[in-house]
């Protein structure tokens, strides 16, 4: 058996299907995308070679591209620094209450994560409807005049409302990760901290959080990747509007390629997007690897 696995042709035969899938599903499409990004193809009919013109335009004069990237950045910051601490605190609370209640609340918090994205988008568009939505109706109870805010249509609230929907949907996952981590925490670790005179704050910040560091780093990497990939909720609610205030890169490149008939330009956006996404993921992984090694 050992000889078999040392046999190069056997190794090649075993590895080949995986490599073939990667080549056909990733390398070749990316290669095509690079090729088309150097053309002015509309998606239909003939096209001409434009060199790096698409990239120059995207990087120097496409404010929507930069806006979409900055929105991705805002979403990453909110998920990492707002969603995760809240999810962690709630997970900690759930790990301390009776299992029956813990199960009940975990199910409640996880429901959005199992709902279809289309359902979630329709649900929140209706909740946030300025005239008939339950949100404005509820707020009107505490106001002298009826509240008619168009949460998804008003420039001041559109991005915040989108981020709320996305965080609402993803919250259950973060909670589940943290809760699972907390349940694996050895009891001795907490007891030892108590004996050493640590209070609950000290126990969490100096003992439990460092123990859960691998889980926290995994959650953050997932947050970054899912923020970069964010498309469906935006597409189904505002479509990136009003203007480009809620535009995200994945939606924008799709719209350019298939709505605006700028297939070449859309491919340029997708290539830059791949570069940014891979770069950012590597940076985040690098940060946590270094931190992990230090620990």
């Amino acid at each position, binding site marked *: 058996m050992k000889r078999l696995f040392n046999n190069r042709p056997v190794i090649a035969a075993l590895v080949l299907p995986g490599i073939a899938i990667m080549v056909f599903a990733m390398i070749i499409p990316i290669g095509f995308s690079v090729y088309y990004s150097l053309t002015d193809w509309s998606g239909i009919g003939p096209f001409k070679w434009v060199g790096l013109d698409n990239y120059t335009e995207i990087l120097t004069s496409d404010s929507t591209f930069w806006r979409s990237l900055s929105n991705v950045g805002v979403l990453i910051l909110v998920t990492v620094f707002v969603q995760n601490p809240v999810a962690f605190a709630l997970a900690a609370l759930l790990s301390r209450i009776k299992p029956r209640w813990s199960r009940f609340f975990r199910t409640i918090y996880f429901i959005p994560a199992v709902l279809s994205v289309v359902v979630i988008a329709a649900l929140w568009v209706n909740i946030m409807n300025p*005239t008939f939505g339950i949100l404005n109706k509820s707020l009107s109870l505490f106001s002298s005049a009826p509240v008619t805010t168009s949460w998804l249509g008003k420039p001041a609230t559109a991005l915040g409302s989108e981020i709320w929907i996305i965080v609402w949907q993803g919250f259950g996952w973060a909670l589940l990760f943290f809760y699972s981590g907390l349940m694996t925490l050895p009891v001795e670790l907490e007891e030892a901290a108590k004996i050493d005179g640590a209070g609950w704050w000290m126990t969490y910040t100096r003992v439990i959080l460092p123990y859960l560091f691998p889980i926290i780093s995994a959650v953050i990497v997932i947050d970054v990747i899912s923020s970069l990939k964010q498309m469906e909720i935006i597409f189904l609610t505002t479509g990136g509007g*009003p203007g480009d205030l809620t535009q995200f890169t994945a939606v924008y490149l799709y719209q350019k390629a*298939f709505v605006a008939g700028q297939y070449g330009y859309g491919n340029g956006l997708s290539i830059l997007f791949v570069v940014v996404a891979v770069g950012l993921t590597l940076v985040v992984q690098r940060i946590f690897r270094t931190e992990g090694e230090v620990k």
Partner: protein
Amino acid sequence: MKKILVALCAAAVLTVGASAQAKVSLKVGDNLPDRTSGMGLVFDTINCEFKAANPGVDMTIESYPDQPWQEKVKIYVAAKQLPDINKYWSFPGMFKPLIDANLVQPLDKPAFDKLGYLPGALESNVYNGKLYGLPLTADCWVIYYNKKLFRDAGVEVPKTVEDMMASVAKFKAKGIIPAVTDGKDAWPLVETFDNLAERINGNFGRVDAALKRTAKFTDPDFVQAATLLQKMATSGLFADDLLVSDYGASRNLFGQGKAAMYFMGTWEVGLATDANFSQEFRDNVDAFKFPVLKGGKGKIDDLVAWYGGNIFVNATGKNKDLGVKYLDFLAKRWPALAWEKQAGYPAQKVVARATDTPLAKTLLAIGADAKSTSGTPSLDRSNAEFKDAIQKAVGELVASIITPEEFCKKVDAAAAKAAK
């Protein structure tokens, strides 16, 4: 016994093979997801009749709302999977790229000339001297209204844009949304912009001139039109969720009696017969002409009208001859059936009937009264990039992210780029 079984199996295989061979599957793609009423129902009826007249033919239909279908066509073209027959749009920005890519089967124009098409209807589908598609509807931009809600709020049908704006407070006092339209997809806002511009300058040709660069979108008439459109949104004429309300949502708000007016084209003649809405609504729905502007040069009978929706045969499909046969069948059945079901305002002559709904009669009268028409709307007169730019800019305008002057600058820059 064994021999008999073998013979039976062979016979069965041959029969299945023969029937599979005989059935030709005609693939059809369209933008009519609702098959229970309106145009979707008419198409299904025609398809059934066509299949009955051609026993060896089966039809596979796929339907999407407008925007997803337009995107799907591009994806199908890229993947070389365009259906045999496609319901599409005849606008140069959308149709010509398909013709230039040799994807559209030319049709025999003289044969269709005999089928009662309205003046200019077939010509809207003629490119390079050849007929490439059949127009289905004559599309006019009108304002539908709910007579009961107007009565409840004490509002008369507006004669001027100023009257319409003045009605906002009365509707709101009664808890009625004054007007709705498909703001999420933005194109109805551009149609309204076109209409307002004409009401100011009295000349539909100005849009074309701006696109051909003999005029500019930054000229005062266009700035004034943009200012008015922005005012319509900020004064509360449109629903507060204008920019997130899509076609279905805005249509439902109107049909459910929540909104008093609905800015839309005459293809919505079926509102008066749509069983999804209450009898009270169906009895009260009517339409009026886009109002004039005090001091404006545009007249009430200058009509934003065009031949938009069409149908064409995929020239690269294996069933193109059968597709042409289907179009011929459709052209003969469509006008009578569409009018009978009040599903659309056909691009072919129809005879008004005593049983027509009041809405249908009004729409026929609006069309008959027209003294001048716009032709293709501004957003579809240029390329897809211009269309995307003007739709995005109009969204920013009504959300007050940009000023009317900035809107006009953006549209003008897009027109200049498209004209190069």
